[in-house]
């Protein structure tokens, strides 16, 4: 499962790279959402255990077995929150990008330098 952590961090770095190098606002936002996805993977990977199973009690997992076999439910719960928040922020960013395009007719980040110093 270390692999998922590494993948997660790889995505985070790819996303940050995108945010730093892409001049287009939409592409920067895509970069951001790649970072987000990476974080979600990292969060998930935190909860794994050896030979773990989903923490849902049903025919395959009895109540008594849960402690010894089920994975940690907390990261799974947290990641849900993180996903929703990431979604909200991304949506809002896109709306901002849209509004900025509407005002200026450009999506280049370097064109928005009215405020400085």
């Amino acid at each position: 499962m270390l692999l998922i952590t590494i993948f997660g961090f790889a995505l985070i770095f790819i996303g940050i790279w995108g945010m730093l190098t892409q001049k287009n606002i939409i592409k920067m936002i895509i970069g951001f959402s790649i970072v987000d996805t990476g974080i979600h993977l990292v969060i998930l990977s935190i909860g794994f255990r050896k030979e773990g199973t989903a923490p849902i009690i049903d025919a395959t997992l009895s109540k008594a077995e849960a402690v010894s076999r089920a994975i940690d439910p907390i990261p799974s719960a947290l990641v849900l929150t993180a996903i929703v928040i990431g979604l909200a922020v991304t949506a809002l960013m896109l709306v901002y990008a849209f509004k900025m395009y509407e005002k200026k007719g450009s999506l280049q980040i370097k064109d928005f330098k009215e405020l400085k110093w």
Partner: protein
Amino acid sequence: MVDPIYIFVIVLGLAFLLSLFDKLSRNLSLFLFFLALASFVYISGSWFISLLSGKEELIIFTAGFKPPVSINLKMGLIEAFFTSLTNFLGLLSAIYLFRKFRAEAVYSLILYLMIIMGINGLIMTRDLFNLFVFLEITSIATYSMIGISSDLKSLTAGFKYMIAGGIASVFLLIGTIYLYRSSGTLNIDSMISSVGLLTTKTGIIALFLVIIAIMIELKPFPANGWALDVYQSVNSGVVAIIASGISAAMLFVLFKLTPLMNENLLTAVAGIGLATFFFSNLLALKQENPKRLLGYSSIGQIGLIMTVYVVLIKAGFIRDSQIVWLISGGLFLNHFLAKAGLFWLAGIIKKEKLSDWASLRTSPILLFAFGTFIFALIGLPPFPGFFAKWQLVMTLAAKGMIFWIVIILLGSFLEAIYLLRWLGKVLKREFQEKFAIHFSRILPIIIFMLLILVLGAYYSTLIFAGNNLNILYLPMLFVFLLFILDFLPVWIKNTLTIAATACYSYLIFPQLAGYKNIFGVIFLIGGVLLLIPGYIKKGKRMGFYPFVAMMYAGLAGLLISKTTLQLFTSWEIMTLGSYILIIRGKKSEPHALSYMLFSVGGAFAMLLGFGLLFSVNGNSLALDSLANVSQAVGTIYLLLGLGFLTKMASIGLHIWLPGAHGEAETDVSPMVSAILLKAGMFGMIILMSAIHSAKIGFVSLPYSLGWLGAITVFLGNLMAIYQEDAKRLLAYSSVGNLGYVLFGLALMTHLGWLTSITYALNHFLFKALLFLAIGGVVMRVKTKNMYEMGGLIKKMPLSFISVLIGIIALSGVPPLSGFAGKWMIYNVVLEKGWYFQGLVVIIGGLIAFLYCFRLIYAVFLGQLKDNHRQVKEAPIALLIPQYIMIFAIMLFSVYPGFILQPVGDFLKELFPQGALIWNEGSAFTQFGYWNGGLIFMITGGIFAIFFLLLFFLNRKAQKVKQFNIVYAAERPSRPELTHVGYNFFAHYKKALGSLSQPYVTKFWDTMSDLFHSSGDFVRRLYTGNGQTYILHILLFVLAVYYITFGG
């Protein structure tokens, strides 16, 4: 007591339904909206009050389980304090935005409620992940709310904000999840008690990421370009919430997490805060946009509060201890109230340039509020920031943390520069248009203004505890009364002020002893005398009397101060009052600024000095303890001396004086010159009577002061002779005069001090006399240039006599009192053996003749100008005090013993050796004797003989007609050249000009340029490109990490 969970229930329940209600009626939804905001104030406020009175704090368990199983919220005293403040701010800012809310879509109400709820959640939650959720609620609602004004600038700023906030939450999320991994919990309290959280590298990095994310939200230098853009462009009501409310919540989050941090991280936070404070203020120096300026200042203040809190904790204070909350709480309140108020004002004025804010003058109440907030931010009394700063310096000094004090004071000084410059522009610049005033927009500002005043008073009781309180309260109460009565006409207010000053003098005179009596006469009786000319003014003279009263209150406070705190508070109150008086002059803006900057700078030197004193003499505030200092004597002497000398305008620190005194109003010039300068002298006397010898390295400080005094006499007088402006001439002459005083004190002998103290009284008399007389002339002829006057003896004979007496007293010619001073100086120079210095002083005295002569000649003698034929004598209100002073000068000249003997008596306690010996009106020293009355009669006799001679011979004299003048080889190309008094001492200038070059002014200009241009250079870092700001944040994180943990 209502459970605080209801804040969340109300917000969510209402917000989810609000759009339905809004379909029914906007008034209904607005009503519910304000009801909700008011209920938050009630809930948090009632908790605050009951927790203050000792009720137990409340822990709210959600879902019915105890932490760490469930998320819990806490309502303790500090939480209640923060939520009360932010909820109150929320309510007021909503009132401020009322008109906007009425016109905007219902979403604005919902988003606003969400921001407030998010802030409450951030403050109350004890769960790290829940903290993240509330942070996102607050942020996302804020990002959306920024769209309330949908211009390009605020959109751009909002986008940059989102990007920065997004990156911060990335760090926060990674950090949180790894902290969970390391500690097995998300509850902050469990993390604090979890052993070994920071033993693994993972734990340390995770904590670092969490802290750095919070730091990014607090806008650290240099990763804060986005924040400045937000402050500059976003709607003022919203920015007030961001700058005060959200920052407060984030600060509290940081404080909440400090128990987790190790020493390294604490140091990092303190360092970042300090750097942010210093650099924000440096970068703000060149800023012209008011809201961006406020942004710089906000960021700086947050940095300061952060640093102060962490440094105190590092110094070993307990987190909840009173001292920590007194200091960081005071600074916080100060920033919180002032910044919100200023941002609100910015929304009313809506101007993009600092100087356009001058239109504030159309509304006295808003102008007052503006001044209040500015002075509060600078840290002057009576505002919480002043007391917090005092306590901070004392506390840090006691712990030996001088480095922190120095940087904090330096940063504060930079902040004072741009704030005062702004204030000056508001008070003096021209303005075209007015602005619209709506009650809903002004109400919040007034409430915060009153709150900051009340809190200032409250803080003063906290800090003064154990000290004598009443010394400043009574006069300050009167000042407050004058603010309220400011709508009355001048004569009522003038009479009232005179009466109050007289009564207060009567009250405190019995408490005075020794040299303080002399200063009592100068400060108080002199004060009353110099209020009389105020009757010449017509109308209301708004904003004058409260500040005169404030200056006198400060001066009186100096007299009866027993502790360093009382002295410093009085000193600052006096400074504040006098600044406003000085800036009232027509062209005073730059001069008042430099006056105030020297004052603030000097005051910070004093503050540091008092801090050192506090630390070396066993944490005592008593002024008397100055005499027992055994360590760091030289440094304390130097710092305090620097503070006092700025007010005394010694050479090097004098450049503010000529403009400030010269440009002031007719009755203000004598006040600031004759009275205010003596405050510096008073301080020097306190210092020098306690510490007789101090050294830095091998340099003896009193000895250096002797030279400084001598040079001040020489150069002050030399510069005075070149002045064309009569009032500036007098102002420069004051520099020289105070040089005598300093020289006399520096001698550190009985006779030297006797000279100094009596000279101070003398200077008060003749300088007030001269300024009043010249002021009267200037008032009548409407110019200050001497070459535009002449021959006024016939039109203004009474003023002529005043000036004549004044210059005789000034130049030390027998028979008047000035001669007594000279005689004693000669004696004491011989006695001490300071021949070189003495020579410089005596030459300086000779130079004084030159400008005295010019003053009387160019103004009163010679030909009367054509346009002055109708000039009248000065008004009676100006003449009355003049003749009282003439009378006093005469009395003092005939009976010098009347003053000299009692002064000499108490000086014997300090300097038992070398006193004057009195014998029937004659004073004896080892070198000779002098009898004032006798000299007066002899000189008077000689004068009478010559006068009669002249009178008889003059009958045959032929009158010279006005144009019967021959110009010797010179053609008058400019009108002023027709006056013989113009450029009168040009020949001296050729010979001695190099001595009076404005080297000192150049030095200070260079210093100022250095700061301004470096600030201007560094701020180019903020390119405006959102992507660059991401880079800044990343670099910042890396730099902090590698510096803190070294890789």
